[in-house]
């Protein structure tokens, strides 16, 4: 398996997602599907995997991206992919009906067992010796093990290129290096997207929320958000509805998780990045 991050993977580089593939094929027998996941979770790779294996399933597959598509061929079934917030945004744009006839299918991170096998596979390919407790440590520190960040960490470990065996402190060092300015493009898109997706002034509001979340190691409470936005949106009901929308989008897009009474970054690495490069 190749150590790669960013490009969608094909063929042997595609790893697992077996249960997801089975579910999708079963669903495609009856429905059109909208595959929803935050960016970088691996939607495109999964779709290409389905494309490659379609014939075995009695389908003919055609892969299209939105930018390239001028006219839409008549499909028997459609499998679409989009960022999770799509349904929230679609509701706002009155496009609810357009996506209502699609069956929603989420795509999450690997479970820790799959993430472990993923790292094992990678380490065998290169080969770099990653002991089980080291793999466990990596998965724990990523906390949201999607293939992209597993690959990114692995690339870092490779680059550190030491003859010495990889121990926990080497892993921690790799995580620290990921936050170097030189590697900021691993995370920059999280910041840039805010503007593209939300526009002004909501991107500014989202920034305010994310900044207060990153400063507090325990994450921040809804009450804190209300106050932080209170200066910008005076009407409490208006503020509340914007706040709920933003939290919805930020959760769906993979920035945040709701921890019961507080919100925190889903990726601890992203929190670190945010603290150093964005909130300061």
């Amino acid at each position, binding site marked *: 398996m190749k150590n790669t991050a960013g490009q969608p993977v094909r063929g042997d580089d595609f790893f697992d997602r077996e249960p997801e593939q089975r579910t999708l094929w079963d669903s495609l027998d009856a429905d059109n599907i909208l595959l929803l996941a935050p960016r970088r979770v691996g939607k495109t790779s999964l779709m290409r995997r389905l494309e490659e294996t379609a014939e075995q399933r009695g389908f003919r597959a055609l892969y299209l991206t939105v930018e390239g598509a001028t006219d839409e061929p008549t499909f028997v079934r459609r499998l679409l992919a989009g960022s999770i917030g799509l349904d929230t945004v679609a509701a706002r744009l*009155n496009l609810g009906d357009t996506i209502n006839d699609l069956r929603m299918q989420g795509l999450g991170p690997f479970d820790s067992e799959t993430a472990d096998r993923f790292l094992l596979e990678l380490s065998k390919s290169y080969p770099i010796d990653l002991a089980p407790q080291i793999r466990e440590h990596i998965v724990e520190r990523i906390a949201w093990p999607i293939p992209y960040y597993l690959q990114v960490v692995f690339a870092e470990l490779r680059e550190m290129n030491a003859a010495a065996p990889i121990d926990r402190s080497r892993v921690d060092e790799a995580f620290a290096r990921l936050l170097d300015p030189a590697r900021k493009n691993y995370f920059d898109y999280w910041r840039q997207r805010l*503007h593209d997706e939300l*526009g002004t002034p*909501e991107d500014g509001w989202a920034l305010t929320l994310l900044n207060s979340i990153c400063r507090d190691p325990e994450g921040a409470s809804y009450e804190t958000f209300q106050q*932080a936005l*209170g200066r910008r949106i005076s009407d409490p*009901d208006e503020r509340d509805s*914007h706040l709920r929308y933003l939290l919805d989008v930020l959760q769906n897009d993979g920035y945040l998780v709701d921890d019961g009474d507080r919100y925190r970054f889903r990726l601890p690495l992203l929190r670190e990045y945010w603290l150093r490069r964005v909130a300061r």
Partner: protein
Amino acid sequence: MTEHLPLHGAAVYNPHLLSPEELKKYFVVRRELLEHLLDELRREAPDRPPQHRLIVGTRGMGKTTLLRRLALAVSEDPDLGQAWLPLQFPEEQYNVARLSDLWVNCLDALGDKLEAEGQLDQAAELDTLVAGLPKGDEERRAEQGLAQLKGLAGRIDKRLILLIDNIDIVLDRLRDAHWKIREVLACDPRLLLIGASSRMLEATYEYKGAFYDFLKIHELKGLSLDETRELLCNLARIGNQPRVVDLIENEPGRLKTLHNLTGGNPRTATLLFGVLAQGPDGDVRADLERLLDQCTPLYKARFEELPAQSQQVVDGLAVSWDPITAGDLAGRLRMDVNKVSSQLSRLESQGVVEKVRIAPGTKAGFQIAERFFNIWYLMRTSRRLRKKLVWLVQFLRVFYSQDELKFHAGRFFARSARLSADMYLRHAEYGAVNLALAFQLSERVSEATELLRHLIAEHADDPVPHNGLAWLLYDRAGDLSEAERLARHAVELDPNSPHYRHTLGCILARRGNWSEAAEQARAFLRSDSKDFFEQHWPDILAFFAEAVAQNEASDSAELLTQEGLSDRWRPLYEALRAIAEGPDRLTRVAPEIRRPAGELAKELTSVAEAIGQTKIKG
């Protein structure tokens, strides 16, 4: 019999002028929060530091009154009064410059309280103590002031509630002492802070702020329509003004319109009461004018405080009414866009202006934060702008007077039939027509149909039964081609009646003949009979709901523009555009218009859906 209070009437700006009895009587709308605060107070463990609180609300939301009412409630409650002593402060503590000043003010407040309770010796003793505090060394003065406050609390065996109004100003002045104050509050079970502020405090929401996650926040929102009604009725009861109660009950549109424009601010509602009490026979426009007149000194002073260039920008925003981008505003003002932007951000940080999302596009819009100020401003500018406001007021009065306009399919049909009753009544000589209507209303459709057919046979040249049967067939998903034939005949017989054209327009729209339906709509929209709009507003809406059902929302909005009604009926126009283009369209519209437009869009859509289902069944 209501017992009338002697003197003040409702205190609009200075709740401290009210006697305890008056305060209790006037305080009606924040009762739930008061009960909650009292309940929380009862749950405080005696030996542990209590939960400190902050009440946030914009001007006129009732912070000062709430603090006063809370103090009274604590004192009068046997258990709470035993354990707690509420201390009240002047609304503005201008004398606070250092931490010691705050503690000295607390001591003074305690002295006032002792004196009010007749404990003159203790009060005098306290004055001596304060006079004896070290003067030169601030640190020692603060330490000793606090120590004495705690000591006195111990001696009278009560915990102290510090009810500090405008605490934002106090804390701004004591920036260096935040952590010390926090430490005292966090450790000492004898002191409870309940502050009030007109804005959120950085110190409570910034992670590095001393009061981050420390204070429980209670935000005072604008009053709902029901709460406003309750407040006004209460004032009317106290002031013995039964006519105000009558008009609140009998003219729901008048109150609802004013509520929409004032945003549920209790102080404005109290002013409104004065207006209504003085002129219950007036109309909503006169009410609004007098209400704005009452706000004039305040708004004028606030506007004049601004530097000249800020005034220009605020003027531009207020006149635009709808949210506007910095670029467009600069264009209107013929000013440099960078200058406008920097003015806007200064005004935003002062809370005068708010940034809002306007879709589509990625540029932010700006609007005046205090909406009633915007209304005030519109009323005082050019005749053209005032007209726009007056149109909105007129529209809202009619729109909101239709009680419970949220008509679902069944009620919608009944309502339409009931409203066409007016025209039947004009033809009272045809008792039979009324009978047909009665049948229809009591769901005896086949009898109604039979009777109308009989009348048509007898009076081939009478438009009334033709129109009646046409509407019945349309309404009850009957034979639409017959309905169309009958309606056309009614229009031929009396081309000047907007009612018959309305019936025909609805039928044609449902039959998918939009272009001809639109022609009929033009005819009835042009009808200059004022009462057609006033009395038959639901019928007008019914036509537009039909248009929405036929996916002609966009065209029907265009129709309003062509007929010169898009400004006059702006909420309807915006509702249709929002249905056509998506709810985001409403972000481009001033909140006063957006709210009714949103309600209308919802109603039109739900009626249109019902029509769609009827069609499928039919």
